[in-house]
């Protein structure tokens, strides 16, 4: 394939992301950087899913960390209480998240208005409550240990290993999301976002499409949650907490609603920042709230689309 064809192909964005994943370690002076980058990719994966929901279906999930929690605790509870292998629990967690999304979303997405925001707020809080209270299963507020992921004798341990696992999974998640956008479903979703009534009149089952996206976004978050737990070796209930949900929303808003690549940018900013600024912790909530507000008021498109637009304007 010629260079020109490559630059114009639909694979370009995914290849660019893959290139980033492959080449980034060349810049890493120590293992610590692998760890931060792994966390970035893990969160970016969850953010891609949430972005599909917010940027394309135009819905908000204010409890998305609840799905993170389901995925995270699945790989903790499964091995500890049922003796199941971690990889199976990861899949089970994803399936459970999808099922829960179906149950919560189906009645609510049929309705007009933004009841999903409230329902997911409640859902997220409920998951956190359950995880904190059912100490017999979940270890309560102190959480529980998570055994290392093992596949055919190989153990997934260490920042280096998880960098590659998270990075490659992110590339796959990125590609799937982009595929979706260039498909009949993706066109239907963008149509729904621009004019729900016109989409409906053209035969699109709006509620069903929104539900599909909600389920997909839940699965993305669940996988990310499982990775988080397996990587850290430990889970606590605040993985599903309200603040975590707001972090995810802030990452979407920062990077750009509707920009899959923006999901990565948002994750980079909000994962790297706390690592860099220790004072961030005190001000984290206030800053997150401020970011969401400011971006929604002044920079609604987010960083990536705004940059892209001004770049395009520049060239003219």
């Amino acid at each position, binding site marked *: 394939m010629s260079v020109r064809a490559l630059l114009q192909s639909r694979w370009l964005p995914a290849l660019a992301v893959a290139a980033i994943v492959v080449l980034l370690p060349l810049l890493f002076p120590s293992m610590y950087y692998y760890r931060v980058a792994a966390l970035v990719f893990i969160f970016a994966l969850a953010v891609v899913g949430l972005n599909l929901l917010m940027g394309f279906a135009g819905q908000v999930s204010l409890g998305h960390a609840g799905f993170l929690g389901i995925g995270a605790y699945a790989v903790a509870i499964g091995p500890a209480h049922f003796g199941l292998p971690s990889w199976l629990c990861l899949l089970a967690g994803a399936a459970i998240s999808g099922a829960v999304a179906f149950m919560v979303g189906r009645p609510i997405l049929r309705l007009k208005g933004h009841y999903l925001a409230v329902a997911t707020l409640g859902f997220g809080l409920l998951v956190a409550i359950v995880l904190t209270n059912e100490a017999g299963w979940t270890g309560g507020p102190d959480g529980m240990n998570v055994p290392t992921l093992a596949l055919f004798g190989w153990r997934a341990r260490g920042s280096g290993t998880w960098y590659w696992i998270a990075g490659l999974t992110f590339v796959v998640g990125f590609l*799937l999301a982009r*595929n*979706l956008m*260039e*498909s*009949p*479903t*993706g*066109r*239907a979703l*963008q*149509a729904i*976002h*621009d*004019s729900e*009534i*016109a*989409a*409906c*009149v*053209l*035969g*699109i*089952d*709006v509620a069903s499409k929104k539900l*599909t996206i909600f389920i*997909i976004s839940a699965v993305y978050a669940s996988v990310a949650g499982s990775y988080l737990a397996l990587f850290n070796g430990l889970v606590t209930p605040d993985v599903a907490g309200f603040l975590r949900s707001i972090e995810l929303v802030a990452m979407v808003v920062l990077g750009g609603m509707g920009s899959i690549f923006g999901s990565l940018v948002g994750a980079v900013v909000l994962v790297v920042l706390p690592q860099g600024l220790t004072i961030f912790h005190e001000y984290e909530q206030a800053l997150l709230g401020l970011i969401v507000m400011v971006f929604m008021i002044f920079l609604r498109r987010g960083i990536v689309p705004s940059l892209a637009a001004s770049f395009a304007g520049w060239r003219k």
Partner: protein
Amino acid sequence: MTMLEAERLAITFGGVRAIDGVNISIASGQVFSIIGPNGSGKTTLLNLVSGIYTPHDGSIRLAGTTVTGLAPDQLARRGLSRTFQNLQIFSRMTALENVMVGRHRHERTGILADLLHLPSVKRQNKATAEAARAALARVGLADAAFRPAGSLAYGALKRLEIARALASEPTLLLLDEPAAGCNPVETQELDQVIRAVVKDGVTVVLVEHDMRLVMNISDRVHVLARGRTLAEGTPQEVRANAEVIEAYLGAHGLREAAHALD
């Protein structure tokens, strides 16, 4: 064959009977126009027929099947399509993509295939794009295909909506004031498009203010005033109806209608 039948249709908004006991019968292959002063309920009637509102009274039959209370997407799958008076364009998509959405009810890929971009999706995208291009060509917008919809002129956007509605291959097409804001040249082009569409076997319901267009193109004209039927008949009959002239056409409309005869 009767394409659309509505009996005793009625709907009330906060105490106002927007449509009050309207009966309509539209034969297949006709151009059926609905006219009336502003506020007479024309768009409300269209919204009732296209499922956006559910009538509080009365029934609607599409090609013989009762469809009262069905949602717009269900009606779309039964061959109904429409345009909007206030333009509901997908502004973030290109003109071609807008029309491709119109193909939705003919697309057959599932979510898994979409996620994995299987060959079936590639084929579907190609087929959809081709059909969309053809629809754009029918309304004269072939070279605007890749321009962002938001950048097109008003008249072009009206035609884009028609192309999008046509892409779904409807048997019944509802046009809500397609000539609004169009200059005489554009209205003439619109006239041609509608005639071509009817020749392909589509039944057209036209809500319009432009009397010239209505009188030239309609097989039957239905006059609404204050939510009720004032008169119905051929364009000539309606034009000559004293009540209609009095309530609606007035001196200005009378002149226009007289011109249309010439």
